[in-house]
């Protein structure tokens, strides 16, 4: 068993803070009973990976993410199975009315932009006409003719805001202040990653590159990745 390292570097601290914040995706009852234990086990696995390889591999984070998604869904499903959907929703949605209202207001925009995105990926006639409508609407609201950066920012902000707002909906209103702060940092990080990432990609390759990458990755997986990057880089 690896010993706990007292003098962790800043990057390690930040990653473990993020993993701690992600515990708030679990139902409150599960998190209260096992959250601390889960965090300790994750820290042990992280430190062992670091000691064995000298770095923490992408595979480690991928398997941790898959485990998180599977177990979060399983635990929420378990609550729904035991308490019923109505009780579950009442308990969840009363947590923070401001965040719920914000998320509801932003969801229609996210839906329109989602239709736009899917339309570009699938290129179906029906979806394409909806996509043109959604893009036209978004461009009209953004007040921009064809500026891809403005369009991307317009895509990014509502999506980021929805992510930002949905996390507090899931977590408990009785969250300890320290963990509350960690969750807020995670939200800000989410916003920054989405906005800056999409903005940079758009600056570099134009606003068609992300749907192009999604289409090729859906069709070919990771096969012939260099060709996919070359094609979409020139799209």
């Amino acid at each position, binding site marked *: *068993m690896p010993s706990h390292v007292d003098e962790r570097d800043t990057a390690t601290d930040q990653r473990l803070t993020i993993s701690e914040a992600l515990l708030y995706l*679990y139902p409150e009852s*599960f998190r209260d*009973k*096992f959250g601390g*234990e*889960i*965090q*300790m*086990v*994750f820290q*042990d*696995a992280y430190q062992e990976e670091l000691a064995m390889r000298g770095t923490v591999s992408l595979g480690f984070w991928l*398997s*941790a993410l*898959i*485990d*998180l998604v*599977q*177990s*979060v869904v*399983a*635990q929420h499903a*378990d609550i*729904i*199975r*035991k*308490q*019923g*959907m109505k009780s579950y929703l009442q308990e969840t949605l009363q947590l923070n009315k401001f965040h719920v209202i914000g998320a509801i207001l932003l969801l229609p925009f996210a839906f329109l932009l989602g239709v736009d995105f899917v339309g570009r990926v699938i290129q179906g006639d029906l979806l394409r006409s909806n996509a043109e409508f959604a893009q036209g609407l978004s461009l009209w609201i953004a007040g921009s003719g064809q500026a891809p950066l403005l369009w991307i920012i317009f895509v990014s902000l509502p999506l980021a805001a929805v992510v930002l707002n949905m996390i507090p909906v899931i977590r408990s209103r009785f969250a300890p202040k320290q963990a509350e702060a960690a969750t807020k940092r995670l939200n800000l990080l989410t916003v920054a990653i989405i906005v800056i990432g999409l903005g940079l990609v758009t600056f570099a390759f134009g606003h068609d590159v992300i749907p192009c990458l999604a289409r090729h990755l859906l069709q070919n997986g990771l096969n012939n990745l260099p060709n996919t990057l070359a094609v979409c880089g020139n799209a």
Partner: protein
Amino acid sequence: MVMSKPKAFSNSNAPLTPPIFYILLALASRERHGYEIMKQVTHDSNGTVRLGAGTLYGAIKRLLEDELIVEVDRDHARRKYYQLTDKGHTIFANELQRYSNAVELAKTRSLLGDIPLAEAAL
């Protein structure tokens, strides 16, 4: 709508799932904390069953609810330790007996003779 609760281990004749089986196997010899269980499961299953922290504690929660394991008080211990209950030992013994019966049956039908164990394990 309230969905039906899954059958408790003690009320079901169905075999245990691999993660539950290996967790009980890890706890059959002695009490362990979460990370020890995770490592032991990976070791005992030759790496075929790897439990993430969330999945592990989801399974532990269910085993606690069904009273197959209990938390053990340890003075000054920072972690929670778990051990099998009598009911857990019984369920686990029944599962081992099921495996043993299957192996005996395979032997009587000469199904194991021609297959090297290492290959059979694959």
